[in-house]
């Protein structure tokens, strides 16, 4: 046992005797381990931000789009395939759709908002006050657009925090100011609290107005909506609400659910899809990192082979004076394990350090499992990459090794 313990110091001395080479070898493991940690952190960070942004869409909402899910619905005579106020009224009926809490018609466009010579391109959403609730927007100052604004085609808007900060100097109060959207002036009546940035789109770069005013002034569309935002009563009854919405729309359009000229998407399935794709993304990053760790492992093995060759004579001496095979084996194994473990530790610190910075717009989030994983792999790398060279050293015949020049 003491021989093996002594072996450890022998190994450390061996490593120290050629520190530059040892450092370069360790660098391979270091980069491998650090990239495992950083890439997994990027994967985790981006999947968290995707989840957050989907959650901020509203957790129990359905979105109804114009257009068939199967793409073509030829053969069926569609009399009215647009989403209009009749659809909203039908879906709002508590008799046919008991699990629907609210239905918000949505008209969207993208425009330049101008105030006092400053312009800012933003998405403009024409809807009703229920849209704000369904989309989890809260009003931080002023008021939200109201039912009477919709009825009166009032040119009033609630603006998102990005729009406010782009158009107005800090300290000035945007409430009551007139903003030019397209060729019309709208009055700011409310400020929306920031929903925070998300990986997908900036949900604070938004202007919300009564859909009637948007149709009148901006889109020129007469009666149709680009989508309907349906809020379910609870997330557990969302699938019930979805089938209710589909059958209501089918009967309204004199067609069957299967040939419905609309698509209904629920936010939960969107979340599931996004989560699974971000998991794939994380796994892909993990594999890329694993490849760089593999390269590091090859580096360790290479240098251990060189070391064994260089020290053939030393191995011969050790064997001649009585070192057993297992002693030589452990000496070189410990050496490669120390190299990869030190490289691994430095890699963990490097990985944690790099993960503190925002990379390509993604804030990396350290995955708790990545550190023990990377360290475990680093030590395994030491064992696996060190084993063959160590075994070769241990198997040398002392007379051959002693004769080696």
């Amino acid at each position: 046992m003491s021989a093996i313990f002594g072996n450890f110091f022998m190994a450390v001395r061996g490593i120290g005797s050629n520190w530059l080479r040892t450092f370069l070898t360790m660098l391979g493991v270091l980069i491998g381990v650090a990239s495992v940690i950083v890439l997994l952190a990027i994967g985790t960070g981006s999947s968290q931000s995707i989840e957050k942004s989907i959650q901020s869409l509203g957790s129990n909402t359905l979105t109804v789009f114009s257009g068939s899910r199967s793409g073509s619905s030829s053969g069926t005579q569609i009399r009215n395939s647009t989403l209009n106020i009749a659809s909203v009224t039908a879906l709002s009926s508590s008799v046919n759709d008991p699990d629907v809490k609210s239905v918000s018609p949505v008209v969207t466009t993208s425009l330049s908002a101008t105030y006092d010579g400053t312009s800012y391109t933003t998405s403009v959403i024409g809807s009703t006050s229920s849209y704000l609730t369904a989309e989890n927007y809260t009003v931080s100052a002023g008021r939200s657009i109201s039912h009477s604004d919709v009825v009166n085609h009032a040119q009033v808007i609630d603006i998102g925090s990005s729009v406010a900060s782009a158009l107005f100097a800090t300290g000035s109060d945007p409430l009551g100011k007139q903003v030019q959207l397209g060729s019309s002036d709208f009055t700011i009546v409310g400020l929306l609290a920031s929903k925070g940035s998300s990986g997908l789109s900036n949900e604070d770069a938004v202007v919300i107005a009564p859909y009637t005013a948007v149709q009148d002034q901006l889109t020129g569309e007469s009666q149709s909506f680009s989508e309907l935002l349906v809020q379910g009563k609870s997330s557990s009854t969302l699938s019930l609400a979805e089938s209710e919405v589909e059958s209501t729309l089918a009967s309204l359009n004199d067609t069957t659910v299967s040939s419905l000229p609309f698509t209904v998407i629920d936010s939960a399935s969107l979340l599931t899809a996004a989560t699974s794709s971000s998991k794939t993304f994380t796994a892909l990053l993990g594999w890329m990192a694993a490849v760089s760790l593999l390269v590091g492992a090859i580096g360790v093995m290479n240098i251990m082979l060189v070391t064994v060759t260089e020290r053939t004579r030393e191995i011969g001496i050790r064997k001649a004076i009585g070192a057993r095979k297992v002693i030589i084996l452990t000496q070189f194994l410990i050496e490669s394990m120390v190299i990869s473990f030190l490289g691994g530790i430095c890699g963990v610190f490097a990985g944690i350090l790099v993960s503190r910075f925002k990379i390509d717009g993604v804030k990396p989030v350290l995955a708790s499992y990545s550190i023990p994983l990377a360290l475990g792999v680093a030590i395994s790398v030491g064992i696996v990459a060190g084993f063959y060279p160590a075994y070769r050293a241990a198997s040398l015949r002392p007379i051959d090794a002693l004769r080696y020049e």
Partner: protein
Amino acid sequence: MSHVTSPTPIIAMKDIVKSYMMGEVEVLATRGISLSVQKGEFVAIMGMSGSGKSTLMNIIGCLDVPTSGHYRLDGVNIRHLDDRALSQIRNKKIGFVFQGFNLISRMAAIQNVELPMAYAGVRTKERRKRALAALNMVGLSDRLDHFSSELSGGQQQRVAIARAMCTNPALILADEPTGNLDSRSSAELMTLFSGLHDQGRTIVMITHEPDIAEYASRVVILRDGAIVSDKPQSSSRAVSYELEMSGAPLLGQVRAQD
């Protein structure tokens, strides 16, 4: 075999044959060597290159196993021992002194001396004590922490002797110990070996230098893988080695002695 008198010789070899395959041809490095060395003897094994003395030294040192024949080292039968057992035999029974010193350059003198004891499982304190005593005996107590690059050839070889001594082996096996030394260092080293011999140590030394062989109490001469002469030192002189090693004239006489 006039030397086989004690019941437990340190070396007891009978008909040792070692053959190698050189491509398709079988080469006999030793052709049936029988040798017995008693405790306390100082034997010089002489021979020219190709005489089989290196092969014999490898077999005596348990670095190699014979193709056939019997070999007992200090009563232990070497045939059929595995790698691990041979390591232990080398560690416990033999102290090696090589021509090229063979110290581990990354380790200080005292660490080199301690190494075989570490492999034998001797505790650290005891190890240090014995290493200090051994280095003191070879006159290097002021060079404990020097590395081999900081020591002269003679000093390195004395460290090697200290390393060979410290496990208290049954046999000290020296392979051309003065081969890399100047004549003054050689004389100093041989005085050291003579001192060990006087203390009752058993020493087998391979050499091709007659004046080095003179320090031994018995001289064995090899030629073509066989023993051609085996005499106590008193009956031989350096001049006669030269004759015997150089060729035939004395062969008949040697055969007669066998």
